[in-house]
């Protein structure tokens, strides 16, 4: 079975929401749609207070290169254009919409039929991805149309679909594969056509045998889709590690996957691509897991983007348990702790993970015993203990020389440290300081 070659850990999998079928989350009374739901600059609002909008109508336009369109997830009236604090407490420009009815744009095909044929040319596919505001749903929310516009002089050889879902607890990708295998395969075929590569490889961790079986069976009906079962090892789904596992290639320091001839997309993104290209449906919904050991029930939902965390929690489990320690957006290894439950969800949100006080507690830190476990767990072959010492002593230049910027923040070092040193926190701080230093030099 394929895997990446270096480092890695095996956290408890906790995929307890595996069997929960995708349910539809009802639409609330008011929606807040943030204008930057993606990597890069915020979109510019093109509606005004009092405007009527329909589901799928463009409300935020991408006016710079690294940006993505934003569409209305609901129908109703624009209440105001203001800022809104996101889940992590940062104020972002947003469009507030009062929901009235559920009127969709006429262009969107809402029939349940699956359309396989795609007659668009590669350039037209990319243009449509841009129009529909598709971004990568694996976490980084990189605008998809940029990824599929291969720059001059570079050549794509591999299309890799990330369905590893190596993060503990998350099951949204699994449910998409089980319930929408055919749509996903159509989406993959479209992306394959956009890139002009012979084969697409879908990497799935072997702890999802049902998804592997389902995808293998479905992929038989399509040309050039290969399912790659992967060893269960975190971070199998990290972009550079996945490329290494499937192709054996290594993406160099500061390089992009395309420099190694690879383009990687998340499996959830493929479903969104299908809906955008074949059904004219912009990215207005997320598939999201609501899970946690102390919750009364486990869920997977399809949620309109802009629904608040509180609304989702109220609908799924009523209220948070008394013993809640942290609420996390994403998995336990790389997810971010949510500060503000009033915040709306954004593109790319994959879960609301509720951790109990005990599970969420950090153990007290003690002296480094130089065991080297952090170094051997690091999938990038770095020295986390060294960064920790260098950053504490403000030796930023040396941290840069030791390739601190190669760190992918997967958390393996902190996870495996017997002295409980918050290595990943210190490295994040160090990376920011290195970037600030580099910016100051320019």
């Amino acid at each position, binding site marked *: 079975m394929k895997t990446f070659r270096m480092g890695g850990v095996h956290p408890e999998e906790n995929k307890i929401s595996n069997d929960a079928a995708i349910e539809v989350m009802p639409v609330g009374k008011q929606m807040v749609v943030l204008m930057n739901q993606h990597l890069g600059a915020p979109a510019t609002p093109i509606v005004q207070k009092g405007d009527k909008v329909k589901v799928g109508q463009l409300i935020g336009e991408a006016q710079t290169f690294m940006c993505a369109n934003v569409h209305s997830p609901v129908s109703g009236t624009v209440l105001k254009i203001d800022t809104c604090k996101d889940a992590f407490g940062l104020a972002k420009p947003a469009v507030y919409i009062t929901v009235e009815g559920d009127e969709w744009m006429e262009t969107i095909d809402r029939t349940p039929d699956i359309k396989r044929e795609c007659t668009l040319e590669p350039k037209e596919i990319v243009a449509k991805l841009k129009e529909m505001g598709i971004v990568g749903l694996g976490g980084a929310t990189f605008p998809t149309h940029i990824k599929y516009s291969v720059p001059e002089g570079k050549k794509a050889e591999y299309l890799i679909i990330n369905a590893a879902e190596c993060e503990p607890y998350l099951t949204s990708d699994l449910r998409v594969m089980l319930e929408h295998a055919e749509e996903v395969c159509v989406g993959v075929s479209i992306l394959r056509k956009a890139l002009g590569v012979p084969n697409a490889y879908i990497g799935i961790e072997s702890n999802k045998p049902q998804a592997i079986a389902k995808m293998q069976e479905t992929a038989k009906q399509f040309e050039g889709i290969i399912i790659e079962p992967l060893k269960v090892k975190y971070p199998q789904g990290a972009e550079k590690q996945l490329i290494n596992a499937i192709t054996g290639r290594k*993406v160099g320091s500061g390089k992009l996957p395309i420099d190694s001839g690879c383009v990687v997309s998340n499996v959830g993104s493929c479903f969104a691509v299908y809906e955008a290209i074949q059904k004219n449906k912009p990215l207005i919904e997320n598939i999201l897991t609501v899970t946690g050991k102390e919750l009364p029930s486990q869920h997977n939902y399809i949620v309109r983007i802009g629904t608040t965390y509180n609304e989702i929690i109220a609908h799924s489990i009523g209220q948070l348990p*008394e013993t809640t320690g942290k609420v996390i957006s994403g998995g336990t290894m790389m997810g971010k702790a949510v500060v503000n439950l009033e915040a709306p969800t954004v593109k790319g949100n994959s879960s609301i993970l509720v951790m109990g006080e005990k599970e969420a507690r950090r153990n007290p830190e003690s002296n480094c*015993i*130089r*065991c080297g476990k952090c170094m051997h767990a690091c999938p990038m*072959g770095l020295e986390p203990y060294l960064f920790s010492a260098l950053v504490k002593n403000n030796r930023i230049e040396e941290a840069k020389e030791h390739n601190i910027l190669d760190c992918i923040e997967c958390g393996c070092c902190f996870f495996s440290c017997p*002295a409980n040193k918050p290595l990943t926190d210190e490295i994040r701080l160090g990376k920011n300081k290195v970037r600030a230093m580099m910016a100051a030099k320019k």
Partner: protein
Amino acid sequence: MNLLNISGSPHVHSDESTKKIMWRVNLALVPALLVAITFFGINALLVSLISVASCVLFQWLIEKFILKQPTTIWDGSAIVTGLLLAFNVPATAQMLWIVVIGALVAIGIGKMSFGGLGKNPFNPALVGRVFLLISFPVQMTTWPKPGFTMSFDAATGATPLGAFKEGALPADVTLMDAFLGHIGGSMGEISAIAILLGAIYLLCRKIITWHIPVAFIGTAFVFSGILWLINPESYMDPVMTIFTGGIMLGACFMATDMVTSPMAKSGQLIFGFGCGLLTIVIRNWGAYPEGVSFAILIMNSVTPLLNRWCKPKRFAV
């Protein structure tokens, strides 16, 4: 609940802890301790108890009254030091008080003066051991004859290495004796099989890797083998070399000490190679019949350099 806790990722931790590692090392030392008690009797038990108790006590006293910080005796590291110190001295009645001085030097100078566990550049037990060897040369080289006894005044004899240094290996010492532990020597080093048992446990628990022990023992074997091939009269045969003296104990438990050995695998191989080479050099051309302690301490001093030179292979070049 009004406020949510926040922190950076990751939000989970493996169940690994310093305390677990140290207690597992202690567990791995138990077979060698049992062999020591079997062959050296009551003295072995008492020396071990006193050594461990005084290491723990000195650490507690220093943390409480000098450093004025919360005690860390429960992490089990002082017990490791105590056991290893006891393993490196002869199990005789006169060691009962000498080992207390060793414990004070090991914990006080070897470990706490640098800031405690994790900060010490040298293996604390070896610092204590070498201090005793230089300060009490007679007592530290008076070896009890193996054989279980409840008496405090056991008969004494030479170690195989000591005898060889003086002239020739005693005819009655067989390889099997060395393997099981029926030879003279420091109490923890005599039985290769007990030490290997502990080492296998540590390997399975991923507390040590094979690099240092294999490089150490392999280098000692090859180097002494070359010498033996050149002149079998004046050099000990390589198999006997690695099973007598402190090579097994040193390679499996002392050189592999996380704090004082390099982290990268390439560095560990160089470290083990250096230990093996220096041991054979000291044994054959030095003043002492045994050189494991000095070899490891010398290589400990090179560890920071090895950590600087030997980098893990980067994923992205």
